[in-house]
């Protein structure tokens, strides 16, 4: 099950905890994986951990040219057209709505929503031709439930779910699926910074009584990337320990 031998994949934001884990899991399943992110050194380190099945394609998704060229660069580095796109890169610029600056609203929408859509659009050509493709968007529980201080982030993540459903309908008959994975609270460098009191409060809202692990997100991505998930499209798979049941 879930054999990705002979497949190619691009994971954006592969320098992060979740992105790195997704890349590893896809490579372990046999895919050749292109790792994208802004920090070249970190990308090289993740690629070295993965071994022969990884290539590095640095890109800054807040830069238009970088976004426009990424699929082509990844396909060149992979030596073939893309089978699996994982839009995992994301940024936050948290602030209460009343204090949120225009540029912080825009930056989050540009990277988290617009660049992800463009990468999906630019990868469709090859997928359509081969009648096979997997687009997997890492959204967030916040895109469905909202969260104070994250109007921009929630808008981008909800928007991602929306365009995924539209695109899924457009390309379903071509063997291409488009799905989202929505993590809840996952242990990463970012959540490690929370204080004990904050953590305790958070855990109170999670029926599973613990934070999630990046591996648990990667496993959901692996399933959606597999041939076995061919009949699943336009869906959002929530991986959140029961924190929100939607």
């Amino acid at each position: 099950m879930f054999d990705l031998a002979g497949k190619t994949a691009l994971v954006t934001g592969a320098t992060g905890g979740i992105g790195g884990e997704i890349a590893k899991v896809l490579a372990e399943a046999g895919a050749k994986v292109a790792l994208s992110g802004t920090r070249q050194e970190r990308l090289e380190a993740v690629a070295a951990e993965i071994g022969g099945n990884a290539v590095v394609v640095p890109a800054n998704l807040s830069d238009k040219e970088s976004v426009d060229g990424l699929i082509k660069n990844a396909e060149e580095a992979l030596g073939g057209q893309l089978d699996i796109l994982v839009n995992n890169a994301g940024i936050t610029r948290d602030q209460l709505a009343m204090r949120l600056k225009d540029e912080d609203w825009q930056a989050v929408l540009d990277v988290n929503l617009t660049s992800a859509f463009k990468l999906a659009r630019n990868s469709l050509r090859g997928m359509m031709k081969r009648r096979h493709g997997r687009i997997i968007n890492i959204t967030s529980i916040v895109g469905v439930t909202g969260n104070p201080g994250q109007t921009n982030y929630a808008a981008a993540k909800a928007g991602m779910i929306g365009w995924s459903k539209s695109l899924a309908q457009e390309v379903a008959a071509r063997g291409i699926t488009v799905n989202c994975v929505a993590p809840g609270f996952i242990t990463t460098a970012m959540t490690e910074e929370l204080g004990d009191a904050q953590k305790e409060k958070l855990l109170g809202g999670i029926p599973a009584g613990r934070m999630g692990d990046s591996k648990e997100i990667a496993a959901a991505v692996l399933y959606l990337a597999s041939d076995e998930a061919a009949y699943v499209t336009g869906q959002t798979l929530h991986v959140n320990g029961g924190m929100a049941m939607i």
Partner: protein
Amino acid sequence: MSDVADRVKKIVVEHLGVEEDKVTENASFIDDLGADSLDTVELVMAFEEEFGCEIPDDAAEKILTVKDAIDFIEKADS
């Protein structure tokens, strides 16, 4: 019939799975040959590949019939 016309018709037959005699020059991809809008995008991609040319989006939108495609490609070729 020109070589371009033959090749265009062959692509249309293969791609849309229609009878060859239905693919007349005036046949509309959508109205006569049962294509949906995504089929027309794919046809344009197939033409680009077959003839090694680029069909810009604004030109692609105007390619509605078999003849439109032949005319565009012959013009691009010359």
